[in-house]
């Protein structure tokens, strides 16, 4: 299991997570999945007493074969969520309430399909929040080059550039939380839940950064990641980017002052073959959007970005490349338009989808030509960091002429 400088290699410290009581919040799991998860927990914590919070809808814990140190704590959720592929406000609130009731000194909040996590990974996450002063331990997933593209294109670069934090997966679904971090997230979650937005997304890395809490990243190796249901890309992209832009708006006073660049993540050299068929349909979507949505983009983007898109629209498929700084400015301008409500927010986020597909096509062309995918993503994140003054300037003086 590879480690970043801030990570703890759990395999070498099997008893690191031993101080205080640890609470592990599980999502609703089927009978077999819960058995597998309990077995993993027993392996991960052979001697430590662990509280396992499961929703009351999960089959009765007494019926499961589990060691004495694993205590199932069924709870009635304070809030329910219909979204299972990502952690929502309801999950954070339920986790905090369970931690409060169990007097836990640290907690792990695990997402759907958590039975696929290895015992070492679970132990590593726990060790990070129990054995050090870390407030937030975020999972680092080993995804393929064609997975987690929204994260690579928008979530990671924006979070890294604006909030000056390193986690590669800002929307990770496996987290280790200190009590104060869990409380802070629960307070934010409560605000959403009080307005009946139980499915709202929270951004733990941004919260931790703005509170000046310590963040660590734990490489958890392979894991089955849950995928969204049948909802289409447009809806999901709008949901996720809308939430991120809203967070950027809320924390504007913090990120405008935050300075510094993050060291790039280490990555292994691997390439993927060019997939002409995939790129073709994404390019079709971009070309169609360019001829129809140009006037909407013109309300949001400055002339320089529109010129870049014009050049891109006439670029042949085999050399299709969206420059990193162009994509960074597009995302920044959309974030600004989201704040200023230049156009309806639903329309704004809908108009971003074809541009995102163009970035994906460009990424696939680039990686197909031999550039390691992770190198491109790290370069992109650096471009976002370089262009941060552009966003700060436009955020402060949006009416100033911008070529």
């Amino acid at each position, binding site marked *: 299991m590879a480690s970043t400088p801030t990570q703890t290699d759990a395999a070498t410290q099997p008893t690191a997570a031993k101080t205080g009581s640890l609470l592990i919040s599980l999502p609703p799991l089927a009978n077999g999945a819960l058995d597998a998860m309990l077995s993993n927990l027993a392996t991960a914590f052979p001697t430590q007493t662990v509280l396992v919070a499961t929703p009351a809808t999960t089959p009765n814990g007494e019926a499961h074969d589990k060691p004495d140190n694993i205590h199932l704590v069924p709870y009635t959720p304070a809030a329910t969520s219909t979204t299972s592929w990502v952690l929502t406000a309801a999950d954070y609130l339920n986790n905090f309430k369970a931690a409060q009731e169990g007097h836990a000194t640290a907690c792990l909040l695990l997402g759907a399909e958590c039975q696929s996590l290895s015992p070492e990974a679970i132990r590593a996450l726990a060790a990070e929040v129990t054995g050090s002063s870390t407030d937030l331990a975020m999972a680092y997933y080993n995804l*393929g080059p064609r997975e987690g593209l929204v994260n690579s294109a928008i979530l990671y670069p924006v979070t890294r550039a604006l909030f000056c934090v390193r986690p590669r997966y800002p929307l990770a679904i496996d987290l280790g939380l200190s009590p104060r971090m869990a409380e802070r997230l629960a307070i934010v979650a409560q605000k959403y839940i009080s*307005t009946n937005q139980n499915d709202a997304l929270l951004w733990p890395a941004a919260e931790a950064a703005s509170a000046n809490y310590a963040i660590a990243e734990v490489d958890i190796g392979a894991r089955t990641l849950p995928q969204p249901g049948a909802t289409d890309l447009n809806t*999901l992209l709008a949901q996720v980017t809308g939430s991120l832009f809203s967070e950027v708006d809320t924390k504007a006073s913090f990120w405008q002052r935050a300075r510094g660049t993050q060291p790039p993540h280490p990555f292994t050299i691997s390439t993927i073959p060019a997939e002409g*068929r*995939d790129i073709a349909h994404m390019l079709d979507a971009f070309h169609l*959007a360019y001829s129809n949505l140009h006037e*909407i983009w013109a309300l949001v983007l400055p002339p320089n970005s529109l010129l870049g898109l014009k050049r891109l629209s006439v670029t042949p498929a085999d050399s299709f490349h969206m420059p990193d700084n162009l994509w960074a400015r597009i995302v920044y301008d959309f974030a600004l338009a989201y704040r200023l*409500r230049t156009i309806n*927010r639903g329309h704004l986020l*809908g108009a971003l989808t074809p541009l995102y597909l163009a970035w994906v096509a460009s990424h696939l062309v680039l990686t197909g030509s031999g550039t390691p995918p992770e190198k491109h993503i790290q370069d992109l994140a650096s471009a976002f960091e370089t262009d941060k003054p552009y966003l700060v300037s436009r955020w402060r003086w949006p009416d100033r002429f911008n070529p």
Partner: protein
Amino acid sequence: MWQQVNSALSQSAHRVLFKLASFLPGLVALLVAVLLLALVGAAVAAILRRILTSAKFDERVARNSTDALSDWSPSGSPTLLVARIAFWGCIALGVIIGISAFDASSNGSQISTFLLPYLTHSVGAIVLLIIGNLVARFLERSVLIGAVNARLQYARFLSLGIKWLVLVLTAAMVLDHLEIGGAIVELAFGILFGGIVLTLALAVGLGSRDIVSRSLEKNVERTDPIPGDPESPTPSEPLRHF
């Protein structure tokens, strides 16, 4: 004869001058009422703007409500929307007071009896027109973006069709509200609306023919692959955006 003509002319001139003399004060009263209420409206709008800005009304609305109010506001500012509503409300009040004053100053005039109901209808018609335009613009963009993201080649045509459907509907409602045109408007609206719907249906139906046939062909290919066919696409790892 000449004396009679002269007398008739002088009497009519006298009547005109008399009418004018009784009309002018009423007109002045109307203008003064509108002007005064406009000034009051401007003052009220300025005060409201200042109070709402200091109370961070825009931020509160953005935080606590859905997009609706801000989206319909000028420059996306609910504060400006409230201020403008107050200003134009005062103007409308000024016009109503002015007409009443005009009516009172001109003896025996029944202008307000006819004008005031029509004025309220006109205000209603203007509100309808504004709302209709906003809805048309909103739906046009919604359909355009949705259709582009659904990769429909006729996205622009579809969005324009929706826009004109709403505009025609709005125009018919406005004319009906003002009681102009009567049955002609209803007939013209029916013909226009039906024509646009038929055009859209034909265009979409004919335009989609190829798409439907391609889709059916793809389904057939998917269910019945030809083994060893070099032309058949090789399965690739799917893209996962999340």
